[in-house]
């Protein structure tokens, strides 16, 4: 019988350490499916961050390296200089990318580095146990703002796509979400475009994936996806900020 569905060769057969309901698994699989469909699993090189996905290389069947906290864009810049024709990507969470690593992010974008970044925004520090992130929403509770984030104490959350949208070197900037099947399908298309931008050598490609963290949000997985839709999307609109003509 002809198989109707097969797991991508991009995923290794490993039991995941991610919590039940976490969207890292979806994001992992989408990136690997895209590379698989593009025939680039054998060429791709990934950089994982510090955070829950530090050991993403346990699951992703491509050459990978761990970067120290926030440095993934610098590491990817170095890799891309040695292998200019290989698809290179960073996979980073909000603490890693939007807090400690924002300098490396902005300058990689500024240089128009020809790699992709997949930004997992779940509005919290997951691995360290639920501290406030730069993307934690006002009013959202975290272990370093137990009564909810206040503007007075921590300012407003950073919108990273909007920030990168001002940088010419970032030629493809899109925010997607992982809260529903249709959103997941749209996310996959965005990941495809990001690799297409890279392959065509057009510049820096950035995809933000709104994600859930049921454990540290203190919610069931279903409730978490609802919370994402009702609270994150109004503040972080799902939107294509810019896209080069060549990949539209």
């Amino acid at each position, binding site marked *: 019988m002809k198989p109707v569905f097969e797991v991508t060769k991009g995923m290794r057969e490993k039991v995941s350490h991610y919590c039940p309901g976490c969207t890292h698994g979806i994001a992992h699989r989408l990136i690997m499916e895209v590379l698989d469909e593009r025939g680039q699993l054998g060429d791709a090189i990934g950089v994982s961050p510090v955070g829950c996905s530090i050991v993403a*290389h346990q699951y992703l069947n*491509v050459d*990978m390296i761990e970067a120290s906290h926030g440095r993934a864009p610098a*590491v990817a810049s*170095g890799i891309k200089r040695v*292998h200019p024709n290989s698809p290179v990507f960073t996979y980073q969470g909000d603490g890693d990318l939007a807090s400690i690593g924002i300098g*490396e992010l902005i300058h990689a974008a500024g240089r128009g580095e020809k790699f992709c970044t997949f930004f997992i925004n779940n509005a919290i520090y997951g691995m360290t146990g639920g501290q406030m992130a730069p993307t934690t929403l006002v009013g959202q509770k975290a272990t370093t703002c137990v009564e909810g984030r206040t503007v007075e104490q921590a300012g407003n959350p950073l919108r990273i796509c909007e920030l990168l949208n001002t940088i010419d070197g970032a030629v493809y900037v899109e925010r997607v979400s992982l809260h529903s099947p249709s959103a997941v399908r749209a996310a996959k298309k965005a990941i495809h475009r990001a690799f297409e931008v890279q392959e065509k050598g057009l510049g820096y490609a950035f995809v933000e994936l709104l994600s859930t963290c049921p454990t540290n949000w203190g919610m069931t997985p279903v409730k978490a996806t609802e919370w994402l839709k009702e609270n994150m999307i109004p503040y972080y609109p799902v939107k294509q900020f810019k896209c080069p003509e060549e990949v539209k």
Partner: protein
Amino acid sequence: MQEKRLLKGNEAFAIAAINAGCRFYFGYPITPQNEVPEYMSRELKKVGGSFIQAESELASVNMAYGAASAGGRVLISSSSPGIALMQEGFSDLAVIQAPVVAINVMRSGPGIGGIQPGQADYFQVTRGGGNGDYHIIVYAPKSIQEACEMIYNAFDVADEYRNPVMICADGMLGQMMEPVCVPEPREAMKEEDIPAAKPWALTGHKNQRERNAINSVFLQQEVLEDFNMNVLAPKYEKAKKELPEAEIIDVEGAEVVFVSYGSTSRMAREAMEILKEEGIKVGLIRPKTLWPFPDFAFEQIGESTKHVIAVELSMGQMMQDVKLALNGRIPVSLINKVGGVLLDPEEIAERTKKIMEVR
């Protein structure tokens, strides 16, 4: 060796690196090493290499982390406060066993300090400024010529040991000019040759091998202990056996032995001649490697030696290794200047005589 040329230290360092086959350089401006990134920005592209002016030293060491992991021959350079900023990266490079060569054109400290030459980075380069039980291999040249040869060889040492290697020069060597014969250019490794030469490198698995995963995190304590004890430690033990180098002059029968490295050792060498004319027998041990420290050289110090004097531009940092090497056999004194002030031979000679009177 190429024809003799009059070259500024920093430029000569960059030429030596390119001639050694280095094709990737990531730098950030800091005095007194700016001619290194300036030269690389102009010249690397002419040989098919790649230069990035990084946004910080933190970024440059991490670009090196990426490029070396991808199999490239990589150089970074900075000066003392910039090296301090890179220390997280050196610990990371050591744990992922990435071959990177770094040039430190040392200046004075602490803090932002000054831009004049100094040697007060000894602790931060030999003691592991970053976290954990790791070492970087450190060479200390006394001249631009020697620096060029050390840089040229450092890439091979880095590859052989899969470990970062640092050339500790100072502002004096970086900024002055000397006649130099730079080693001949070698062919650089091509991208397609990396998988065979460096099978651990990130090259893409091409659906022909297991994926390579280069990791710095070890969440199981037993695995990390095993890595420290059975991967890193034996490598460092091998380095301690194979790598220590020192120049040893007139130590046999000497009453006084100077221990001095880098450009400062040239002042000590001249002070020896001044003292010799006054009938005082002085020897010199000049460590060419700071880590591993050349303990072997101190075995040559015999009964005749009453004074061992560390001559350095710090408050006595190298002196600690001298004391360890001597293990209490002979008292160790210090002749130093700090803050960017230099020693001259006459002052070293005078201070030596005072030490001899007091002891």
